[in-house]
């Protein structure tokens, strides 16, 4: 019989080394293949076929890209600030890959030496660690833009800093509701509370989910928020002067951010590795791996199994890939926002909405606790109803079209100011 104790001693060291190696390796592999996925999906959306020449179905394309980038000439602009120019890609790359360390990827795995948690570092500051490291990446972008000594790169870096700071506010505020629900900042506990609630946070916190997704798009500098790159305005923005592997490092970090943000969205709002039903639930409660409590508060022990770990990892992978596909899908659908539209959306819409929603959810939780409803399915349903109303109101407000006015709205405003009458009907 396998022991239900956490793995300890020298075996813990081995397990940790294996976990770090495997998770990091798989993460880098996923990042490499997401570049291929981006190119294939964009091609399919545009009725093309995409890269399919290197290896079967083009599956060796990332390898070919890597070799090409390694063999390419590294350029160093004569007027660039050399030390920072070299440092910037590292500053971007490292945080984007480190963030993954606190995300639980599957149910605990039982081994003869004890139970292994499927997470690299179950640190008690979980979400704070994610926020800290994801905001570190902006330094690399700003540094790269400034050190290039190129006006386009510099503008890209400036835009990146303003945009990432703006949307981090909305991101953090939409996270507050998740923290209020889970009562803790560790991501394992966030997953556990979703298992206990009987529904994923995407339903009881639907508006926070929407705000988080939008903010995550802005934080990862993906279209329609790719102001720092904006190739039609700024050449390619902050990495204009970079070539070969340094440029590749920026690209890897962009996709690394996407994978991490997708995994984070899956963990916070779609239950992480949780699959429907209570058969896979597992959480360390006072030194015991438990599956839940009975009505009287008696502990029900979990029975971990390797097939549960595999299945839950599959669920986590599917949820993460869904968000990756969403990223790519939206990129190849929506045009880039104008800069003032980005700022208006961030400060005038996202921030007040997130603030009001946090107060609403806080109040609802208070009322539910006062009424005495137990943390469970009915608790979630009540919150889902409140959130549904809030989401409907938010969508109704956005749908008025006042948020992001197109070019027509701008020209019409100008015309009315100068008093020149516009033709009532269009004609040539």
């Amino acid at each position: 019989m396998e022991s239900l104790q956490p793995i300890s001693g020298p075996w813990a060291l081995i397990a940790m080394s294996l976990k770090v190696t495997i998770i990091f390796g798989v993460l880098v592999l996923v990042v490499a293949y997401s570049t291929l996925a981006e190119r294939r999906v964009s091609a399919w959306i545009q009725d093309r076929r995409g890269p399919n020449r290197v290896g079967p179905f083009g599956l060796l394309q990332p390898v070919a890209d890597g070799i090409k980038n390694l063999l390419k000439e590294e350029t160093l602009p004569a007027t660039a600030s050399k030390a920072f120019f070299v440092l910037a890609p590292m500053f971007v790359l490292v945080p984007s890959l480190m963030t993954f360390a606190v995300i639980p990827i599957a149910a605990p795995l039982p081994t003869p030496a004890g139970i292994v948690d499927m997470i690299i570092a179950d640190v008690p500051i979980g979400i704070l660690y994610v926020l800290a490291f994801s905001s570190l990446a902006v330094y690399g972008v700003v540094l790269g833009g400034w050190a290039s000594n190129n006006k386009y790169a510099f503008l890209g870096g400036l835009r990146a800093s303003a945009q990432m700071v703006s949307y981090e506010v909305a991101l953090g505020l939409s996270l507050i509701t998740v923290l209020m629900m889970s009562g803790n900042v560790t991501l394992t506990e966030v997953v556990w509370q979703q298992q206990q609630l009987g529904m994923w946070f995407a339903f009881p916190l639907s508006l926070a989910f929407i705000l988080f997704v939008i903010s995550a798009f802005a934080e990862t500098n993906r279209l329609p928020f790719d102001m720092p790159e904006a190739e039609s305005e700024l050449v390619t923005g902050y990495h204009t002067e970079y070539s070969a592997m340094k440029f590749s490092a920026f690209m890897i970090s962009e996709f690394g951010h996407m994978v991490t943000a997708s995994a984070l969205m899956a963990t916070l709002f779609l239950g992480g590795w949780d699959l429907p039903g209570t058969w896979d639930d597992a959480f360390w409660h006072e030194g015991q791996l438990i599956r839940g409590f009975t009505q009287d508060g008696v502990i029900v022990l979990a029975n971990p199994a390797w097939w549960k770990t595999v299945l839950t990892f599959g669920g986590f992978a599917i949820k993460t890939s869904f968000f990756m596909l969403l990223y790519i899908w939206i990129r190849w659908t929506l045009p880039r926002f104008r800069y003032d539209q980005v700022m208006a959306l961030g400060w005038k819409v996202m921030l007040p909405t997130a603030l009001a929603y946090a107060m609403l959810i806080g109040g609802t939780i208070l009322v539910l606790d006062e009424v005495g409803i137990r943390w469970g399915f009915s608790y979630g349903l009540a919150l889902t109803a409140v959130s549904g109303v809030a989401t409907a109101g938010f969508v109704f407000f956005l749908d008025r079209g006042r948020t992001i006015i197109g070019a027509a709205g701008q020209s019409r405003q100008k015309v009315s100011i100068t008093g020149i009458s516009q033709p009532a009907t269009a004609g040539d």
Partner: protein
Amino acid sequence: MAISVKVMNRPDPEDTSYLRAALSGMALTFRHLVNPSKVTQQYPEEPTDLSPRWRGTHRMEVHADGRPKCVACGLCPTVCPANCIRLVGGEDDQGNRYPIVYEIDEFRCIFCGMCQEVCPVEAIHVGQHFENAEYTRSRFVYDLDRLMEQDHPTTLLWDPSDPSSE
């Protein structure tokens, strides 16, 4: 000349909705994403469809006994705007004229197809073929034997009475 201004018929901003437009755009891109018919031609594996009027590599028509149909009348080198045809005519015992030398420089040729149009015996043709890469420049001067070896379909001349080739 007066400046003309084209007023675009843009939707009223009061009626537009970014959200609805974005969602319908995503529905559109998703339909294209799952649509299996793609426009890319897998060229080396799938042969390209050439128009019947495509003017490519030349070919010389031959009689049943293997002689070229050319009668060395000299019309094609005369009409050729790029001056890429070299023709030296000869005459056999029965007084039939035939080409001793007939060379076409495919690099100089501009593929106007006038040689085919002017030929009185329908001997020289431009053809529906373009894959004629070689390793040396000299290989691009096609001599008579090589022109006779070509077996791709010949180009359909444009008929003024049937402008769309039906």
